[in-house]
């Protein structure tokens, strides 16, 4: 139960600002793909296009060979129900307790949904004691884990993680990395992770792709990250200010 995703020539602009400028990318079924790239390069926009939350201006997005751009109504809902998504800020519903967040998309009576929620909490290393808390009563790391539990609760075929480790301390970040790796292996799902945390990328990825100025400028297996021979990737991996990626910062 996994699916492959193929993007071809995906373009999106907001007003006159071109965010995606012809993205080509293939994610194989059951593979863990990591997209790296600087802040504001359109990584979130790209996965929202795949999810059908944003409609691209041009290009094709196929899941299992079926075109998904332009889907509407029931077909769009069916497409979206194949995905689980961990949003950048967690996006937990703050009006609902933790267990109702996790069980939100699950069918059944309250008792069985609650049991399923606690089951998924255990998967992300949290106890039943947090089930009745509100999201606002949790620390940032716990919120991320609850959001993760919610994303996997309906056992989706494809999981998206938008910056799962941003804002976490290094230890908590590694806990989340381990979780994602285990989920991908255990549940045998296709995973697409966005990050600019290289430690996270090295841990989670089977393959890595780099997004820069609206295009995929490099992709390859995780092992090739250090020997890519690509100046963009080298600069990003080593976190250097000088290189082909220019930051529009005025010198003092």
């Amino acid at each position, binding site marked *: 139960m996994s699916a492959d995703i193929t993007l071809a020539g995906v373009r999106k602009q907001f007003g006159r600002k071109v965010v995606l400028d012809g993205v080509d990318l293939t994610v194989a079924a059951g593979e863990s793909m990591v997209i790296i790239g600087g802040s504001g390069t359109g990584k979130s926009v790209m996965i*929202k296009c795949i999810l059908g*939350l944003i409609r691209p201006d041009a290009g094709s997005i196929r899941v299992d060979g079926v075109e998904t751009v332009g889907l509407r109504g029931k077909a769009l809902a069916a497409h*979206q129900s194949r995905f689980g*998504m961990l*949003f950048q*800020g967690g996006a*937990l519903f703050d009006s609902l307790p933790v267990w109702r967040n996790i069980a939100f*998309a699950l069918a059944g009576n309250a008792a069985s949904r609650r049991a399923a929620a606690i089951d998924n909490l255990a998967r992300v290393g949290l106890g039943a004691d947090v089930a009745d808390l509100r999201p606002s009563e949790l620390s940032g790391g716990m919120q991320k884990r609850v959001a993760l539990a919610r994303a996997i609760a*309906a056992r989706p075929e494809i999981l998206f993680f938008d910056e799962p480790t941003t804002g976490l301390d290094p230890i908590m970040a590694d806990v989340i990395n381990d979780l994602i790796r285990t989920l991908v292996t255990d549940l045998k799902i296709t995973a697409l992770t966005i990050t600019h945390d290289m430690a996270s990328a090295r841990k989670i990825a089977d393959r890595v792709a780099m997004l820069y100025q609206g295009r995929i400028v490099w992709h390859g297996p995780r092992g090739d990250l250090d020997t890519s021979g690509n100046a963009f990737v080298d600069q990003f991996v080593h976190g250097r200010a000088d290189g082909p990626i220019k930051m529009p910062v005025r010198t003092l």
Partner: protein
Amino acid sequence: MNPVTTIAHALIALGSVVIGLFGAIGRLARFALTVLTRLVRPPYYPAQLAEQMLVIGYFSLPVVGLTALFTGSALAQQIYIGGSRFNASSTVPAVTVIGIVRELGPVLGGLMVAGRVASAMAAEIGTMRVTEQIDALTTLRTDPFRYLIGPRVVAAVLVMPVLVLASNALGVMGGWLLATQRLNFNSAAYLNTTAQYLKWDDVASSMVKAAVFGFFIALMGCYHGYHSSGGAAGVGRATTNAVVSAFILILLSNLIITVIVFGS
């Protein structure tokens, strides 16, 4: 600059304002149409509807009631002063009940609820938008129009007539209290005259106005919240726009209904 280019510039500016206005009306109409078409098809969310009816109706009662009470009293006092100039102070109960039921009860009730509810809806839905909770709803197999917006619109349309009924009653009561306590009106005679001038048509038009106002209040709150962007500042703007546009739509639709119902 020569006059021709000045006029041309003015026309272009005017044109873009008009185009902008039509664009805004078009977007709003499309939003309203989406709300209505999604409403008629399942899934329905009765628990959300009940919660919204409580939030909009029950918790608005004190502020709507007080507004009507004070305004009814002030109205009675003014009619008394105005009426005594041509020796017609006995018109106090008649004019108060007509003024409250036809105009002030629904309009002031609508404005007070708009201030309370349209702003709260815009803030809540706007925050959900900028924190990606609305996107999260979609990925969790839930249509935000059916889950968030539909229940708010239906609740407001159902609850506003009840609130305005209370508003009318308390407005009349405010007039009666002032007239009997301060102006030495006979209580039974005052109530008698009130009953005599209270027409069912007026009550019905009052209810229709209330339902229309409720629709606009929830629609504006949801529309501006749903389309907010740009973090906390954006949510702030959405809240202000929701209240201002709800006020304008209430006053405009009130005028239109009044002209249609009472103008002929």
